[in-house]
């Protein structure tokens, strides 16, 4: 492992990888700081930038955007009480109160150090857990893969958004979209109506940029928010001894919660930060002080949401099942670059895997340096008026999607999905299951086809193999848990 890691560092320390790691974490920080643009939208929007790169550099940059956004999100939560992305919502509760009491520096400092410690620990966890998990998953056949993908989808559907039924509709819609194009087995077209662009299926880049980036920009245009005023008195960024004493355990617990929660498909950084905050409140001797501006309330959620980025890489890289919207976008980018995530990735492309891990260590150090002395610069990003951001993002998205295949029809598809995504947001239909299903459907259909061929058309194959049975059982539980909860509450009432 050490040899692999050293090779990974050698690759990650090449000039281009270092440069794009820096570019990724910087863009991530900006995306995290700017309210309205989340990591998933930012990652999707910047995928076209990676087309000239090799897959390793591309994923180093995209991963940098992901964990960079987690760092950046805390800045606006603390200084403006406005979360830059959803995983920083919990940081607002105590972070902003600390800033109001003149302790913005300490809040930003502990947030940066906590993020650094948690981010680094989560990479250690990823490094230790990924190889044995990949060795175990290598024995998976098509039925197990089908069951695993079904589980990933049901978990994301059941945990994302506030309504199960809307999540299911989004998932079914995504699977339906995933069937568009020429069937690879028979060569027969489905719903492509002879349009050459649709023969290979809907472009993942067009759909993801539309659903995530454009829809958020339309929302921005609707609200026409003026740049917020922020607390600009930032001093004493280094936490004192007492701050450290009170924060170290929340940071460690937040790291563990964030890592393990996001290693499961569905529970991303947002759920991890909420869990971590709730845990600290429960463990505290003074739970009533949470929300009034105590440092534990900043250290715990910020550590959890950064640890979640390392945890999210486990299902993505090792199992080939992304657990969140951002991970789904990264998986799409991997597929575009000809890499097939899954247990064979470690075996076939160890250089890629270990270079990404090494880059995450380096990226975390870069972020600590970027976020402590330059925090004032990031805060000033809030002054960029939406009148510049809106057309700029729309132009970057349009030109970026065009450059994927030099095809304007794909840009029109992006626009269509931008409008669909905008209305999905309005009416509470989550977009993450759509993109996850769009990416997984061809692989899932393939695994299903192969399984049925193995069993001569008998679906019993999914239930006669223990791993497949166990995975499908968990999928069923996650899918039907709201119904079971409802029935249980009725029984209790009676």
């Amino acid at each position, binding site marked *: 492992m050490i040899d692999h890691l050293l090779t990974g560092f050698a690759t990650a320390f090449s000039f281009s990888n270092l440069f794009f790691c820096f570019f990724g974490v910087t863009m991530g920080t900006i995306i995290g700081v700017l309210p309205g643009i989340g990591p998933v939208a930012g990652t999707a929007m910047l995928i*076209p*930038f990676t*087309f*000239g790169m090799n897959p390793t550099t591309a994923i180093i940059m995209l991963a940098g955007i992901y964990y960079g956004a987690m760092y950046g999100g805390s800045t606006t939560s603390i200084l403006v009480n406005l979360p830059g992305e959803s995983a920083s919502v919990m940081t607002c509760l105590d972070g902003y109160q600390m800033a109001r009491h003149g302790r913005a520096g300490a809040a930003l400092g502990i947030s940066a150090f906590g993020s650094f410690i948690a981010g680094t620990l989560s990479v250690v966890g990823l490094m230790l857990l990924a190889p044995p998990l990949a060795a175990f998953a290598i024995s998976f056949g098509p039925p197990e893969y089908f069951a695993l993908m079904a589980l990933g989808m049901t978990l994301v559907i059941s945990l994302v958004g*506030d*309504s199960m*039924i*809307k999540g*299911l*509709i989004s998932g*079914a*819609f995504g*699977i*339906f979209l995933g*069937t568009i194009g020429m*069937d690879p*087995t*028979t060569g*027969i077209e*489905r*719903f492509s109506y002879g349009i050459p662009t649709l023969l290979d299926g809907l472009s993942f880049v067009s759909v993801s940029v539309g659903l995530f980036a454009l829809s958020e*920009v*339309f929302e921005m*245009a*609707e*609200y*026409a928010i003026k740049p917020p005023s922020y607390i600009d008195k930032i001093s004493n960024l280094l936490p004192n001894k007492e701050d450290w004493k009170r924060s170290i355990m929340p940071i460690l617990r937040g790291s563990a919660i964030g890592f393990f929660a996001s290693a499961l498909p569905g529970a991303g950084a947002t759920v991890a930060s909420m869990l971590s905050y709730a845990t600290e409140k429960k463990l505290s001797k003074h739970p009533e002080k949470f929300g009034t501006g105590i440092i534990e309330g900043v250290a715990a959620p910020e550590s959890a949401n950064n640890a979640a980025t390392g945890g999210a890489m486990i299902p993505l890289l090792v199992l080939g099942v992304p657990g969140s919207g951002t991970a789904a976008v990264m998986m799409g980018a991997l597929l575009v670059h000809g890499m097939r995530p899954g247990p064979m990735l470690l075996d076939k492309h160890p250089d890629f895997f270990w270079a990404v891990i090494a880059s995450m260590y380096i990226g975390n150090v870069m972020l600590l340096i970027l976020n402590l002395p330059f925090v004032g610069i990031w805060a000033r990003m809030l002054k960029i*008026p*939406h*009148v*510049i951001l*809106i*057309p*700029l993002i*729309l*132009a*970057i998205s*349009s*030109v*970026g999607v*065009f*450059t994927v295949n*030099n095809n*304007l029809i794909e840009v029109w598809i992006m*626009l269509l999905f*931008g*409008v669909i995504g*905008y*209305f999905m947001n*309005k*009416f*509470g*239909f989550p977009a993450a299951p759509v993109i996850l299903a769009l990416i997984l*459907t061809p692989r899932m*259909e393939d695994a*299903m*086809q*192969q399984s*049925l061929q193995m069993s001569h*058309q008998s679906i019993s194959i999914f239930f006669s193999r223990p791993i497949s049975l166990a995975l499908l059982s968990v999928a069923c539980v996650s899918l039907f848990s709201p119904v079971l909860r409802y029935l249980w509450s009725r029984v209790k009432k009676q």
Partner: protein
Amino acid sequence: MKKGLIVSCVILIALSAYGLIESSRLERTMKMGIGIGFLPFVMSLAIGGLSIALLVSILRGRAEIKDKPVFQPGGRSRVFVVVALLMGYLLLIDWTGYTLATFVYLAATIVFLRRERIFNAVLMSVGLTVFLYAIFRLWLKSPLPAGFLGI
């Protein structure tokens, strides 16, 4: 919000009907494994069934609906114009190419969103057009739509 949700359910039911009709023309079963019409058919059925269930729960008042207007005051027209401007940009870029279309689009959007002075909008648009050109054409070496102007 309730009316909007009802409309979205109706649209989804229509989509499901379309999916069912189209996928029923495709084979759902084959000698070895499932046919190419299987998954779209099942998913259309699922979308239809779930949308009907959602519609029923909304009409019976069981679904949780946020008590707020769908659009912010004046927001609908702003979004409509932003989408229309983007559509115009896509039509223009095919015809005139990247440089002119991007400049016109940026200037028009800036003027619309902030009622900015024309001179300022032109200045900002030139800057942003050059910035994007530098990123995509010079740095990433990506081909950009040329149009009849060739740039």
